[in-house]
């Protein structure tokens, strides 16, 4: 099992030696059990880092945000930035580098293995504990131990409260790394990949259609699913038009007819438009960190959509997102044995 001291030592060391300009990791939150993302840039801050089953967040998002901030400030950092990355987080770093969002030397990956366990799903936990909110959670080899508000501890079988994406984890060990902590327990996934999707697809088309209508009808278009996704890095997203610059010469006509693919209204049609666009834009890029689904305040099971696209890519093109920095991306690859005859 990973010792938190090892993570802290690694972070402190590289900051003290001036090898990296900052370390993105997790710290204790102020509102209860869950850890929260933090960026530290002084060695003494390393003692605040934590590693436990509430380190849900895919921190590669903050690499993207850092890059945007640097570009905005017209700065070119000379030192890399370090990130503590689980298996899925490391895969998303790979996709970002494959897409040339940053170069390998720009980042320093401190890999942490989930060792065949994974992160907790707070919704499952709430059901398992009848709504009681634990104050902390820890790994315990195979399972979890949570501390309850009265100070008592409770052991929970990982299988019951683990996030779906971890149950089906393809690669719990961060293969792409500069250093890696913890054992490689690849192959210990508790469910087959795409198991939840396969279960869902047992329903008829009509049932699924009704299901998605009910789900999307509830969407409040907070865009948390987009904002949390490291692959959703576009400067201008279809849903907001922040790049529309208006000069004194811009006519009223031009202003009024700026392209808005999807209206701001949370109507069912616009909600569908938003989610279908996002699903398509993530095909072959989503590495199933499950963050979009976790953050949705109204429990829309977005993972099913992205998994569907991922499985298509795998079955149709043998494509595995996040596997190789140098390899072609899904949309820029071509194979002679492509099953689609129309392409030749």
């Amino acid at each position, binding site marked *: 099992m990973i010792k938190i001291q090892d993570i802290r030592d690694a972070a402190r060391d590289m900051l003290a030696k001036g090898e990296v300009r900052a370390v993105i990791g997790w710290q204790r*939150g*102020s*509102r*209860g059990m*869950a*850890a*929260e*993302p*933090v*960026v530290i840039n002084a060695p003494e801050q390393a003692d605040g880092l934590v590693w436990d089953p509430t380190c849900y*967040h895919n921190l590669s*998002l*903050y690499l993207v945000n850092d890059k945007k901030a640097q570009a*905005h400030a017209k700065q070119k950092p000379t030192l890399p930035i370090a990130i503590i990355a689980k298996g899925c987080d490391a895969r998303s770093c790979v996709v970002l580098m494959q897409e040339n969002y940053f170069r390998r030397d720009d980042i320093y990956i401190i890999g942490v293995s989930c060792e065949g366990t994974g992160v907790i799903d707070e*919704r499952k936990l709430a059901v398992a504990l009848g*709504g009681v*909110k634990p104050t902390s959670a820890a790994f315990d080899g195979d399972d979890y131990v949570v501390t309850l*508000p009265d100070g008592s501890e409770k052991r929970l079988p990982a299988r019951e409260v683990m996030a779906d994406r971890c149950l089906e984890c393809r690669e719990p060990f961060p293969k792409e790394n500069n250093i890696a902590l913890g054992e490689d327990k690849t192959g210990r996934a508790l469910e087959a990949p795409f198991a939840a999707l396969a279960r869902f697809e047992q329903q008829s088309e009509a049932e699924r259609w009704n299901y998605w209508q*009910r*789900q999307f009808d*509830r969407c*409040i*278009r*907070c*865009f*948390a699913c*987009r*904002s*949390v996704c490291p692959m959703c890095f576009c400067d201008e997203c279809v849903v*907001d*038009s*922040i*790049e*529309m*610059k*208006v000069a004194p010469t*811009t006519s009223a006509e031009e*202003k*009024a007819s700026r392209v*808005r693919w999807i*209206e*701001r*209204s*949370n*109507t069912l049609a616009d909600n569908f438009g938003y989610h279908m666009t996002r699903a398509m834009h993530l095909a072959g890029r989503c590495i199933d960190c499950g*963050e979009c689904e*976790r*953050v949705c*305040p*109204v*429990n829309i099971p977005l993972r099913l959509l992205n998994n569907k696209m991922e499985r298509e890519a795998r079955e149709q093109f043998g494509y595995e997102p996040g596997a190789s920095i140098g390899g072609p991306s899904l949309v820029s690859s071509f194979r002679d044995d492509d099953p689609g005859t129309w392409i030749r």
Partner: protein
Amino acid sequence: MDKLIDKARLSDWITALADWEVFAPALEDGVWTFKAAGEAVSLGHTNVKQPPKDFAFPQREIYFSFEQVKGEPPRLTQKLPAEAKRVVFGVRPCDGRAVPRMDRVFNDPQFPDAYYQARRNGLAYVGLACNRPVAPTCFCKSVGGSPVSSEGMDVLLTDLGDRYFVQAVTKTGEALVAAADKLFVKASPADKKALEKTHADAEAQPQRAIADAAGAAKKLKANFDSPLWETLAQGCIGCGICTFLCPTCHCFDINDEVTGTAPMKGNRVRTWDNCQFPDFTMHTSGHNPRETLGSRLRQRVCHKFQYFHENYGMLQCTGCGRCVSECPVGIDIVNVVNKVTENVA
């Protein structure tokens, strides 16, 4: 007019409100939401995920439709919502306290909002006191409220085991009770004692503290330029959760949604806007005075604890805790206010 009703008769009360459209919390796909009340209503909810804000201030409101045949003047048709008698059951005290705050904004004597008023007139709230805070993130007491507050409600219910203690707060509330008079019994002095004890116990439950809520406005103002804003917003992803779920956030955006071009037609639509979004204060020039996440966090927190207080003499935050519990990265308004106001004279 203090009364009691058996929990088992709650559904009968709702049925008796034949003149009213009744809404109550329902659990669907793991989310508590206000839905049209069906046969069996039980108020077993913690708090609903989305406050009852939509009833008077829906996320999407059509102002008017427009249509223009080329060469002719445009034709506009106002879409004022019809007034209707609607009652929402199971509103928690924090969300009840949001009602007068929203009223203050949209029923402003100088700038009354006809759309809000049309929806608000005829809208009633039947509240449910919290015998214990429904979540560890609740902090109503720290912002001047109480888990048993009846502010903003027409009726307040308090759970006394197998019965509810029923307090009509307004004339409308009295009418709601009178509509099913025979279902209620008069409260005895013993019942009142039980109520007082329940309320006192509820008040005594520990909650998260804001060190100086009353002085926060002044201290936040003094710390407008604090570097803490950026530090505290470090993890923020700039999503819309904290404000879209807030019972008192009321910023909106107005857009024309074109549905056809020959003839040109469509709707002018108001939708909720969100100070955490990147384009919230985007100027047409491309300049954005609130470009960083820290400046947007400051806007949200200072609106609740400073600007609203300066304008209307009350805090805009009611301590429902939604922005705390639902933030995906743990940005915690209690922590933010405490951190930014600590050590400020």
